[in-house]
């Protein structure tokens, strides 16, 4: 079943095109990696899907419903959540309460925190591995713990589709392994994932499919092993030239 | 009648420009909103009044004295502003709000709430030209304001120091990286602002009644003009000042003097609602 459909999506800022004509589909249960060099438009695409930006042209369909131009909180209530490139916890709340915001507001609203909400929040903290820090002030967590808190908070909103922005940036191989385990645990909960991964250390190992962007355009899509041998993708990342191409 | 309104609008507007320039400069360079600005103008006016009335100084000599007094205070204020942390704009608003209350009450203590005026008889006399009456007071306002604007223009656009100032206004970090002493620029901005305030105060005192709580209105004018112009645009401030002066003059003729105080407020709200970056500023991304 199609979870997300992007139709001819583009975004221009003051005449400069950040994304042009993106056509792409994400299916239920997939892990899709969004790759591309700096400035390719990955974060712009995230911002369009999550509602932070309005597309200049094109449509976004979520489970068949047109959500183009919907605000972020509405998008969240429908089932799309995201994390951010630099972690944004609510610093003066406890870790537990951070997750509870997602739990309480992600779908609907309740006036008070119910026992089942707290239970769910504890469980999610356990999933991401910071259950022992439930009562700590979010500002006092380490950077890696804050990242995991962001993930737990996003999961608390019960998303169908989760957008992860550079979740493994700067990670050592050990941490990448942990991240992969975490992502698979998330997938087991029935969440479809779209991961932005500039350094490719994560998506190559965990993604079913890759979508490669360069200068705002889709240059390739397909399984990782094929994409990483794709001429256009290599050229975008490494600037390689081939003998049978003309020099610029 | 309309020509009188036009003339008074332009001269009032030029005066507003003078008042706003200091505020805009400080904000542009240091990202600090100084809500005590109006109170400082009134303070400078009071210094001039005190010297003129109690010590019988010639009015012209009170100008440098007022400038000096304002300079001292502004340098002190700058020390306090320097201790602020992010977000600078909001924190400076709250801090300077407190400063405004402090300065206002000091003036209340020093001079009581009675209305004061520096009466210079020559200023209320004027020229009878065909169709309008131009008081010497208005001419002085116009002349002094435009001279200060011209001097500031030359400083900002024709000197190296001005270039450094403009660079700091545009992008503090880049300016720092280019070797500009950003903190020094901040101090310079406060000093220039203090000079402008120190000159505006006595002018204000001889054309308007001085009382402690009038600073609030002056601050609102300065804020409106600065927001209208957008950050770091001298031309915008000139345009904004004249538009505001004319708008107030015409409002007085059309609706009566009691509606004058709402003009700046409505203008500011309209600006903030639709174009927070200023009329000539870039649009929102």
């Amino acid at each position, binding site marked *: 079943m199609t979870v997300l459909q992007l139709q001819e999506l583009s975004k221009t800022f003051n005449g400069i095109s950040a994304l042009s004509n993106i056509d792409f589909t994400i299916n239920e249960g997939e892990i899709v990696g969004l790759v591309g060099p700096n400035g390719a438009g990955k974060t712009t695409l995230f911002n369009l899907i999550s509602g*932070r930006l309005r597309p200049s042209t094109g449509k976004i369909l979520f489970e068949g419903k047109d959500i183009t131009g919907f*605000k972020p*909180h509405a998008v*969240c209530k429908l089932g799309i959540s*995201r994390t*951010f490139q630099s972690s*944004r916890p*609510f*610093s003066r*709340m*406890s870790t537990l*309460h951070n997750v*509870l*915001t997602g739990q*309480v*507001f*992600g*779908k609907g*609203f309740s*006036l008070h*925190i119910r026992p089942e909400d707290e239970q769910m929040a504890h469980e999610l903290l356990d999933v991401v591995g910071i259950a022992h820090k439930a009562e700590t002030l979010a500002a006092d967590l380490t950077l890696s713990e804050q990242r995991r808190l962001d993930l737990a*908070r*996003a999961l*608390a909103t019960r998303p169908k589709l989760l957008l992860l922005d550079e979740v493994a940036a700067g990670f050592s191989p050990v941490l990448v392994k942990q991240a992969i385990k975490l992502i698979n645990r998330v997938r087991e909960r029935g969440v479809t994932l779209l991961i932005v991964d500039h350094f490719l250390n994560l998506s190559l190992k965990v993604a079913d499919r890759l979508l490669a962007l360069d200068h705002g355009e889709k240059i390739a899509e397909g399984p990782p092993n094929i994409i990483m041998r794709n001429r256009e993708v290599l050229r975008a990342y490494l600037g390689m030239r081939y003998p049978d191409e003309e020099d610029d | 009648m309309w020509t009188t309104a036009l003339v008074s609008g332009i001269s009032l507007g030029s005066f507003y420009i003078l008042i706003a320039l200091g505020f805009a400069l400080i904000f542009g360079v240091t990202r600090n909103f100084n*809500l005590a600005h109006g109170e400082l103008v009134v303070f400078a006016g009071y210094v001039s009044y005190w010297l003129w009335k109690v010590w019988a100084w010639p009015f012209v000599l009170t100008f440098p004295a007022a400038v000096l007094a304002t300079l001292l205070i502004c340098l002190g204020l700058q020390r*306090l502003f320097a*201790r*602020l942390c992010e*977000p600078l*704009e*909001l924190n400076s*608003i*709250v801090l300077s*709000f*407190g*400063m*405004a*209350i*402090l300065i*206002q*009450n*000091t003036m*209340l*203590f*020093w001079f*009581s*709430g009675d209305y004061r005026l520096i009466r210079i008889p020559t200023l209320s006399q004027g020229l009878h030209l065909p169709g309008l009456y131009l008081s010497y007071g208005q001419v002085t306002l116009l002349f002094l304001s435009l001279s200060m604007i011209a001097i500031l223009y030359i400083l900002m656009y024709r000197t190296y120091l001005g270039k450094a100032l403009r660079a700091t206004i545009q992008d503090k970090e880049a300016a720092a990286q280019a070797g500009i002493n950003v903190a020094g620029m901040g101090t310079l901005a406060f000093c220039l602002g203090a000079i402008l305030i120190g000159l505006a105060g006595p002018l204000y005192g001889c054309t308007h009644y001085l009382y402690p709580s009038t600073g*609030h209105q002056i601050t*609102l004018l300065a804020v409106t003009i600065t927001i209208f112009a957008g950050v770091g645009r001298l031309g915008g401030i000139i345009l904004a000042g004249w538009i505001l002066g004319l708008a107030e003059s015409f409002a007085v003729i059309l609706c009566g003097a*009691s*509606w004058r*105080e*709402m003009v*700046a*407020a409505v203008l*500011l*709200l309209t600006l*903030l*609602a639709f174009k*927070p970056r200023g009329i000539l500023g870039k649009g929102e991304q």
Partner: protein
Amino acid sequence: MSFFASKNTKLNTRGLKFDSVGLVTGLVLLIILPALVKSNNYILQVFTHALLLANLALAWNILGVSGSISLGHAAFFGAGAYCSAVLSLEYGLSSWLTIPLAGLLAAGLGLIMNLICLRLRGAYFALATLAFVEIPRVITDNWDELTHGSLGLVSLPGLPSLSLGTWSVDFSASIMASYYFVFAFSLVLLGLVRFLFNSNLGLAFQAIREEEIAAEAVGISANRYRLLSLLLSAFFTGVSGACYAHLVRYIEPGLVYGLHFSAIPMIFAICGGRFTILGPAMAALIIYPLDQFVFHPLLPAGHEFLYGVVLILTVLFLPAGFWGSLRKIF
């Protein structure tokens, strides 16, 4: 320390204990105050005004806790004062009716402010509020048929009277009665603020205050919650304005729309602790009597410099406010 720091850590339990101790002490003292001062009317009047300002500070803080700083809350105060004054004076309605109506009018004004300031944040919102207060002020000042303009309204009806069966009390009859009326309102407001801040609404307010973008991403509509906090804040400020009108029985535009009622509640909220429940009230009940009993006699003109100094010191040295900081320590 915010309410949602944690329910269980030692840290916040202490904070809660401190709150409770402070609350109980304060309540007891305030209840027995008239007896303590042997019904000295002057002292009672000062504390009545202090309680009124405490209410204003609590109301201001409802907006403050969602991250917005308003420099022009007197717009709501004055609108409420004039609404209740005009309705009770010209139409003879009971204050029990006009006071809540005044709150509704103020809330309506808040709705208008929200429409204008929807996209404004931080400093620009604050500047907008500075300008906004001029509009109801100038309109009131010029609408002579309705408000008598700058002459003000005199001989306003006093606070209402309450009859339950055979027992009745006229709150306008004595200073002590007025004191208990305002005090009762303080209790109601305090209870409401506590309920609000401890509920999920308070959670939303804190979230949009700290990280608006992240809050939106977890389903919190920043605009909607900001509007809610503004409407509630405006309502209770308007109600306080109405109470003021019936308390002093004379109002004029320069006074009720003036800086005094914009600045002082804000200063109490910030100096007491913008993100606490009790802080604003505590600041009002300590600083205002200090101003009236100590500094006013010393400096009949200019004693309000105290508020400027307190604000400057708080911004520079004690951003959590004195009550907020004390909570952290104890």
